[in-house]
């Protein structure tokens, strides 16, 4: 068993919206159970419309659940807090502030008592970390898409959160920029042992970054189909990841899910037993005689 502390727990989470015709309610997702352990990187994959962003907003405290709850470090999440930083899909930088100003706004919120010099030092540390040295005084409009999201990453990390929540942070970027940002994020997160949760629909991104991947079926009434443990060892990198024997089993399993199983999950359920409180864990590419859960 993984002995690490479960720092983020999703327990029976449900979200309903009023139905479009005004009669009754539609459940976007329900009966979600999973967790994120300390220092772990978990990705959630699902098609658009399964409520991924809503789920992340509830985890951040920006939205309310209709049922169930999210526990962050043992406390029920009811509103946003500084221990959970969010990297938004659109970088969400304040356009009237410079890159430094945006990060400083976060740092000053986290440590209101700090002097200007202390804040400046903290900001600079994270600007350097995301390789934006020299662009401190530029406004977001003067930065490229990749650089904007770097500022977003620096802003989230600079408050030294317990949990980093990311909502498809790289989906608006071109493939090359996305790749280099993924590499950087991977390095930073590993070096800081940063507990992270990311929503994505990019399979390679999930295989590269995640220790475990939560598969979410299509909405409405989306469920956690299963949890995939990444069988590629830590220290993955984009240049040789695909040469590992487990890469294609992982990738094929995830594609199979996205293309077929995410739609037909309800029929699949009829044929087997399913406990939403502990969705099956699978390890694609691992020898089949090994038990499902092993210490990592």
């Amino acid at each position, binding site marked *: 068993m993984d002995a690490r502390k479960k720092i983020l727990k999703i327990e029976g989470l449900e979200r309903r919206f009023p139905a479009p015709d005004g009669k009754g309610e539609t459940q976007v997702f329900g009966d979600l159970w999973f967790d994120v352990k300390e220092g772990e990187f978990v990705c959630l994959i699902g098609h658009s419309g399964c409520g991924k962003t809503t789920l992340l907003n509830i985890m*951040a405290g920006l939205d309310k659940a209709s049922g169930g709850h999210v526990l962050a470090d043992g406390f029920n999440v009811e509103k946003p807090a*500084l221990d*959970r930083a969010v990297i938004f899909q659109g970088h*969400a930088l304040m*356009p009237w502030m410079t890159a430094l100003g945006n990060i400083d706004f976060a740092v000053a919120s986290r440590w209101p008592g700090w002097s200007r010099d202390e804040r400046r030092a903290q900001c600079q540390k994270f600007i350097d970390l995301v390789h934006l040295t020299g662009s401190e005084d530029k406004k977001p409009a003067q930065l490229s898409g990749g650089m904007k999201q770097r500022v977003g990453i620096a802003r989230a990390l600079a408050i030294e959160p317990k949990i980093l929540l990311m909502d498809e942070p790289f989906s608006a970027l071109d493939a090359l920029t996305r790749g280099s940002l993924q590499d950087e994020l991977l390095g930073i997160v590993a070096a800081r042992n940063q507990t992270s949760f990311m929503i994505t629909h990019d399979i390679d991104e999930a295989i590269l970054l995640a220790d475990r991947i939560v598969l979410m079926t299509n909405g409405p009434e989306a469920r956690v189909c299963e949890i995939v443990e990444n069988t590629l060892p830590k220290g993955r990198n984009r240049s040789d990841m695909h040469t590992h024997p487990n890469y294609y089993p992982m990738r094929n399993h995830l594609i199979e899910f996205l293309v077929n199983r995410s739609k037909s999950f309800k029929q699949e359920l009829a044929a087997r037993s399913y406990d939403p409180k502990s969705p099956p864990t699978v390890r694609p590419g691992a020898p089949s005689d090994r038990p499902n859960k092993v210490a990592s």
Partner: protein
Amino acid sequence: MSDEMKERIKAIAASVAFLGLFLLAWNVFVTAQNGPAADMDPELAALLGPQAKGQSALPTPGEVGAEIWSHVTNPFYDAGPNDKGIGIQLAYSIARVLTGFGLAALIAIPLGFLIGMSRLAERALNPYIQLLKPVSPLAWMPLALYTIKDSEISSIFVIFICSIWPMLLNTIFGVASVRRDYLNVARTLEVTPLRTAFRVILPAAAPTILTGMRISIGIAWLVIVAAEMLVGGTGIGYFVWNEWNNLSITGVISAIFFIGLVGMVLDLILGQAARLVAYAE
């Protein structure tokens, strides 16, 4: 020389040429109306001025130019209630506009902020704002004169009431349409409501608010002329009316020039202020 410079020089040349043509046409139009001098009593002729000499009552551009120049060289003379320099009259009008506009801004911007933050308040108050906004500010004048009983304060009130609506509506709109993302960032950072208001909502809405202020000062400057014609005493509106009573078309035209000039400067100042708070998304 860059193409941009060439374009600018062309535009300036065209402006000057246009002005020259306009002044020439004006001059031709006025002098063409000149006929033979009427045969009349010299005292009556003196009263009637140029018309008795067979000249048009409309001045030539040269006469207006001389009048404007005399105002520019001696703007602040004071020879009794009906004969003050145009600088003094403009100063009265500008002071009234700035007072009324300033009071309106002091109320409209904070009030618009509160209304803009609440969907309920916005919906509840919108019908009243929509009802009062299209009312000509001069329609308030009798009510103001009756209740305030002071013509000076009444004209300031009329400026106040006409400049409040664009600022109020733009502030409400600007605050209500601040991007959700910015507010979510502030929420995840546990920023206090007051700090969110000043560091996030105000800068985000500032360009829209400034646009409202710019519309307001334009309307205020339009309205002050009419208000001062009605109330009398001092100010550029009174000056225009006084020149009309003196049958001095020259005076009226030169006043129009100065009214336009001041209006342009007021708009330029707010335009510069708007540039200071503008941001590119």
